[in-house]
């Protein structure tokens, strides 16, 4: 039960303040500003307890969103709500900025009234919200339309209205993954996991029934046992083990529990079908090999080699390697064969950027760092080298096997639907110790 929601700008001025419950007083607004936004020490915990009041905050660029409660709520629920709130606002007016919030504050209050009721989250589906909260003036809605909204919002399938028609039935499916890694200097994987999302954009007519299939190990194994004709060895290799997953509300969970099949009536437009996490057999797209040598007290030689580890036909993009430098760096010389490298003093790091890189290649950078002798005996902590990239495959190994669409009432079949599938693997926290 969220007691209230506040939005602040970077100075701590309140832009939006909506209180849902009586137990949250006016001073709660100031308490958060004083203790978190203007805190002398930067507050790192997203949850802050001030005078028996809990504040849950997220930050979007310079904007702070804080949910307040005096009760013992489920923190995950509150954050899920805050993220949804951000999504909804982005869907309505684009980037969340002070300017945009000020321009749309009537809309935001309207949204807040709708998606939270007495502190309990309600419908936060953008598509559904857009049917009755509009940015234009009030349309002369007929009675029919109004009753349709009511039946849709209160009905069983709240995320899709009836009577949608498209000339072209199209479907876009994105598998977005972020791969996280911590590797020792010797190349030993200390921890690695992939968190992925399946995002769908559907432009389908009527009330279609969809079925989504992927190379989930459990499903494949079951089929391997059932259909004896399949080669068990082959299917085993191709399948992945999913550690845990969550679904959009449209997915029929009972069916997933019993048959592990993902079937649903999709909302119209863009939505996130599922989220998952894997930890086994991850394809690491890049390998970073650091070499740091201290030459005397005033010099440091760094050599970093990166190797791409995927099919040569694929191209990785937006590669960025960040090599931290000691705090007493007084000068840096960099030589790299590919891309551009620069010493960024404000971030205490050498940033090496490569636009594109094909698979099974390697590239290296070497730098000479000059140090200023200090009287401090403190040794440099050697933070890990981190990396950013984007690759056109799923590092978890997930493959979409099928996405079938059935619409019995309208006469289009699965074959008539145009389907697009795309895989994007991004780096999460991808670090190698040096």
């Amino acid at each position, binding site marked *: 039960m969220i007691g209230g929601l506040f939005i602040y700008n*970077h100075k701590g001025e309140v832009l939006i303040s909506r209180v849902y419950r009586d137990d949250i007083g006016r001073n709660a607004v100031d308490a958060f500003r004083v203790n978190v936004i203007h805190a002398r020490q*930067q507050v790192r915990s997203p949850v802050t307890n001030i005078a028996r009041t809990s504040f849950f905050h997220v930050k979007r660029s*310079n904007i702070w969103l804080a949910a307040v409660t005096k009760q013992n709520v489920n923190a995950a629920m509150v954050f899920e709500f805050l993220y949804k709130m951000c999504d909804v606002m982005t869907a309505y007016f684009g980037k969340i900025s002070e300017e945009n919030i000020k321009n749309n504050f009537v809309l935001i209050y309207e949204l807040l009234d709708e998606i939270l009721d007495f502190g309990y989250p309600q419908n936060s589906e953008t598509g559904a919200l857009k049917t009755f909260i509009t940015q234009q003036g009030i349309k002369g809605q007929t009675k029919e339309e109004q009753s349709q909204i009511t039946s849709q919002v209160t009905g069983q399938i709240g995320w899709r209205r009836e009577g949608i028609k498209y000339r072209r039935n199209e479907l876009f499916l994105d598998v977005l993954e972020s791969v996280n890694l911590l590797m020792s200097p010797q190349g030993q994987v200390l921890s690695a996991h992939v968190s992925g999302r399946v995002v769908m954009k559907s432009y389908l007519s009527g009330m279609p029934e969809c079925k989504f299939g992927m190379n989930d190990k459990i499903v494949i194994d079951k089929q391997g046992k059932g259909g004896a004709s399949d080669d068990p060895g082959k299917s085993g290799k191709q399948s992945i083990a999913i550690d845990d997953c969550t679904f959009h509300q449209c997915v029929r969970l009972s069916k997933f529990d019993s048959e592990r099949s993902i079937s649903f009536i999709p909302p119209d437009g863009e939505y996130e079908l599922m989220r998952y996490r894997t930890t086994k057999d991850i394809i690491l797209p890049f390998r970073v090999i650091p070499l740091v040598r201290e030459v005397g007290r005033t010099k440091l030689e760094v050599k970093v080699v990166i190797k791409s580890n995927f099919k040569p036909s694929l191209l990785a993009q937006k590669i960025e390697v960040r090599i931290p430098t000691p*705090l*007493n*760096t*007084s*000068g840096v010389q960099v030589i790299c064969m590919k891309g551009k490298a620069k010493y960024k*003093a*404000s*971030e*205490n790091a050498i940033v090496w950027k490569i636009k594109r890189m094909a698979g099974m290649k390697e590239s290296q950078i070497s730098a000479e760092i*000059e140090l*200023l002798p*200090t*009287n*401090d005996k*403190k040794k440099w902590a050697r933070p890990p080298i981190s990396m950013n990239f984007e690759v056109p495959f799923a590092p978890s190994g997930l493959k979409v096997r099928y996405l079938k669409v059935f619409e019995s009432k309208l006469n289009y079949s699965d074959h008539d639907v145009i389907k697009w599938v795309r895989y994007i693997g991004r780096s999460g926290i991808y670090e190698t110790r040096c």
Partner: protein
Amino acid sequence: MPAVSKGDGMRGLAVFISDIRNCKSKEAEIKRINKELANIRSKFKGDKALDGYSKKKYVCKLLFIFLLGHDIDFGHMEAVNLLSSNKYTEKQIGYLFISVLVNSNSELIRLINNAIKNDLSSRNPTFMCLALHCIANVGSREMAEAFASEIPRILVAGDTMDSVKQSAALCLLRLYKTSPDLVLMGEWTSRVVHLLNDQHMGVVTAAISLITCLSQKNPDEFKTCVSLAVSRLSRIVSSASTDLQDYTYYFVPAPWLSCKLLRLLQCYPPPEDGAVKGRLVECLETILNKAQEPPKSKKVQHSNAKNAILFEAISLIIHYDSEPNLLVRACNQLGQFLQHRETNLRYLALESMCTLASSEFSHEAVKTHIETVINALKTERDVSVRQRAADLLYAMCDRSNAKQIVAEMLSYLETADYSIREEMVLKVAILAEKYAIDYSWYVDTILNLIRIAGDYVSEEVWYRVIQIVINRDDVQGYAAKTVFEALQAPACHENMVKVGGYILGEFGNLIAGDPRSSPLVQFNLLHSKFHLCSVPTRALLLSAYIKFINLFPETKATIQEVLRCDSQIRNSDVELQQRAVEYLKLSSIASTDVLATVLEEMPPFPERESSILAKLKKKKGPGAVSVTELEDSKREGGELNGGGDRGPDTAAMAASNTSTPSPSADLLGIRSAAPVGAAPSSAGSLLVDVFSEAGPTAPSAAVNDDGFLSSAPPSEDPAPPLSEADELLNKFVCKNNGVLFENQLLQIGIKSEYRQNLGRMYLFYGNKTSVQFASFTTTVSCPGELQSQLNVQTKPVEPLVEGGAQIQQVLNIECLSDFSEAPLLNIKFRYGGALQNLTLKLPVTINKFFQPTEMSSHDFFQRWKQLSQPQQEAQKIFKANHSMDTEVLKAKLLGLGTALLDNVDPNPENYVCAGVIQTKSQQVGCLLRLEPNAQAQMYRLTLRCSKDSVSRRLCELLAQQF
């Protein structure tokens, strides 16, 4: 000082600072700072030398970054380089950096010290000042070590500029305050004193701070400053306001200097030289006169400066305390301030008057302002001023105005602030007692006090009333009557009930003649309050009831009925239940004679310092009140304690001032004397014996009907040793470890080790029950002459022993000389409310300090013959108590601590041992011969020691062993 020219503006620094100010977030600020740091690093690292300007700029930036809260670990070297620059601004920034970011790097310190030394020896006054400021700002021990000898030289050198002298004096003051041991007195000290004569007022002002500080530590060396200060003061005071030009502040000539001079004079007694003294008195008079003059300006600064001097002068007058004329004038002046508009002035006036009141000369003068002060107490808006007014009333109180003051304070108490109520209550109580002429007034006052501010009346206050009432026969009847009346109020404070219960229980008979306060009425009145009171008060009331039974036999039935009712006899509180049960039994079993003896009237309390006074002192902190208090007590003599008899002398007062008795001592005083009140709580063990079969360890005193209370030992004293204590002792002659004592409740284990004349004993107290033992205490005592023979040190044990738990106590034993008695161990604890008291003998015997000695047959007999005097030998023939097994005997003899010598005695059946007993004062050689006779089952034991008492004691001890 050279003005900062426009070119020194350091644009880069300004830009950087405005950048930082414009940062929108913390992260942006950190980024900007990182960038700047990298830039500065590359600049400092760069091969080409930086010019002074950029060096200064970067050092400034680093300083700014450091002050923002970031770590700076470089740039020190550049800052040190700046010190050697010839430009003022560069040098200044260098010094600034160094005094802010002192680094303990030894290399750097050397460089810094070098630069400072150069500047100090330069002729440029601004550079010298910069260096001196840096030393003072850092003020570290290293700095003091390096420059403590240098600065006095600069200070007294003839050619030093005035501004440098000023800085040097303040710098030296700072070094002296941080490390006084390094600033050595020397020939410069006398010359420093002469700085008081300096032409430059600034130098004098700086020097006087230094001199005041120094003279507080070594008054004798600076004695000469008194006359100089006086002459300086008179010059300032008598000067016209325009003479001093720069040093005249709102028409007041040199106010700061005057205050400092007056304060310096307060370090010394009045000058002996008549001329000097005359001059000083003149000055003080002038100051007092000036206060009367109409103000030259309406500005607040003018009056502040004037009053500052005046108050300092008044505190000097108070300090001297020898000029009645001045004291009275000061007092009158303060009297004027009492009605001043300015709250601060009123506060200060009240505070100074407090000290004036204690002076014999001005006491009367202070008293004339009583009306004003009382008025202040009532009408003042500021609580701190009211508090001062209350203090002053307390200080000015004497016999003549006591009644008025006490009445006023009492009436004020009703509206007083909560923070000062308790203190006020104590003050009223003390004044009432101290100046009581007739004690009915005293009783009235205190009862009023309890009525008005019952919550703030501490235990001590009502203890004290009772003590005084009991000690004075003439007031008892009146007290009983007043208390009785006070209790008739529908709601009265618990403290009132306590006092009432106690006094009616003692002296209710004095008012029983009146039918309005007949015994039954009294009892009913008390009992009507009973249910509203807390447990301790109820306990006290129960004691009052049993006293009633004694005083008025006609109430016996009623009271027994009350005691018998379930809410008493089955009360969940152990204490109440026990009292109810015991009193009920006591009243039904004991005859009237016994009752009368047991429940006799309280004996008078021994005279002692009022515990209230002690409490007030503790509240105020040492020194705050004690001085005036001490003087009061000098004047008032023995008035303090219980009035009439001039009991305690001032020496005793002084003694008790230093160690105030704890309130519990007083409580004990009341309790141990209270005949019945004490019974359940402290004489518990006895009563437990009477009424129940519990308490196995309690001394089994003979209980008979006539006077069982009188025959019992006072329970707070240690019980007599157990009858089996000696047996227990014998068990341990030949062994060091084992169980010393055991009963149903307690087990005491022992473990001990001895080396030469020292021993260590571990006692293990095990609680065998499942209930915790409360107030568990153990004491080891050495009775009689043992005190000089044995030294036993113990550590106190935990007062709580949980059920089933064991606690340990370590005893350190030192044998000073030979001894024959054993030390006593007394153990006291409460087991389920009943006091257990147990005394044991500690198994420390002389043989524990044996050192075995090996010797040959020849040596043995030679020594045996040497110890042939009849006293030195002790012999005993006795029957064997145990079997005459050879191995057992050998083990025992070894356990004794001696060396068992083989092949010495011609008869192999006999045992021969030798050893030296180590005591602190001497060593006693011992030879032993044990001749068993297997047929007759007899032994003959012969001991020869170099000391006769030892032979006898050992012989006694050993005869029990075989």
